[in-house]
């Protein structure tokens, strides 16, 4: 098997691989290529850092969800009870 030494990633290629990288989906060689580029490129290092900042920001910006209103919960409990009673 002939193996070429792969050329390094360009910045434009790297930005499309950030989530594959953070999700652990890159094969080891690709992963090293990604890390080598980020270590040597300030622009991409900033980009990766900003992408990593997104999940907590999305979480912070989300409307809190309180679930079901109490009356809905109550009627569900009634439905659950009668379902169980019917099965007995």
């Amino acid at each position, binding site marked *: 098997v002939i193996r070429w030494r792969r050329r390094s990633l360009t910045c*434009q290629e790297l930005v499309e691989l950030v989530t594959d990288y953070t999700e652990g989906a890159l094969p080891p060689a690709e992963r090293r290529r990604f890390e080598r580029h980020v270590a040597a490129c300030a622009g991409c290092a900033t980009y990766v850092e900003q992408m990593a900042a*997104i999940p907590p920001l*999305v979480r*912070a910006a*989300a409307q809190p969800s309180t679930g079901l209103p109490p009356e809905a919960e109550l009627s569900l409990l009634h439905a659950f009870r009668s379902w169980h009673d019917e099965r007995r």
Partner: protein
Amino acid sequence: VPDRPDHVRPHDLATAAALAAGDEAAFADLVRELSPSLVRLARGYVGSHAVAEEIVQDVWVSVFRGITGYEGRASLRTWVHRICARAALRRATSERRSIPFADAFDDGPTVDASRFASVDARDNPRGWSSAPRPWRAQPEDHVLRAEQRAAVSVAVESLPDRQRLVLVMRDVDGFSADEVCEALNLTEGHQRVLLHRARAHVRTRLEEEVGAS
């Protein structure tokens, strides 16, 4: 950090057995634990909060009626969210005339090509010509926070349906990749593409907001 696989939590089978046995406290606990993320998920499919709550109520009825069908192959919360996603999709399909979630599988670049040098540039082809500037260097950090938050909300709302559903399950409700794939019936690769596009879109909007202020 890769996600942990969607392990069935030890008490999932016990909870399912309790429900099957008519344990009201176990049912009430589960309803309280999972309804917030269920309402959020359903709301991602339908236009109103009230309809989302209705869907979730129906989901819970399906859950206890079908609890003996839970075999512990996915976590209980994944199983419940999958039922919810299906119910919400049915409801959305019947409410809209067009088919929802048929957004084109967009595979264009997530960062505008104008930010990079051309392929035949002598210096650093396809490298940044306009690199992102670090956000932490912004002086008015506390002022920006409210604006950033608003920009993030708007960006999330404007996402195509499936990107938004994946982003919310992953980044708001903290589901693993496996759980999202199972609940929304996506392949691993597709889930990752949707998540990537969603996060990249939010980053771009935020960059514009930070740059504008």
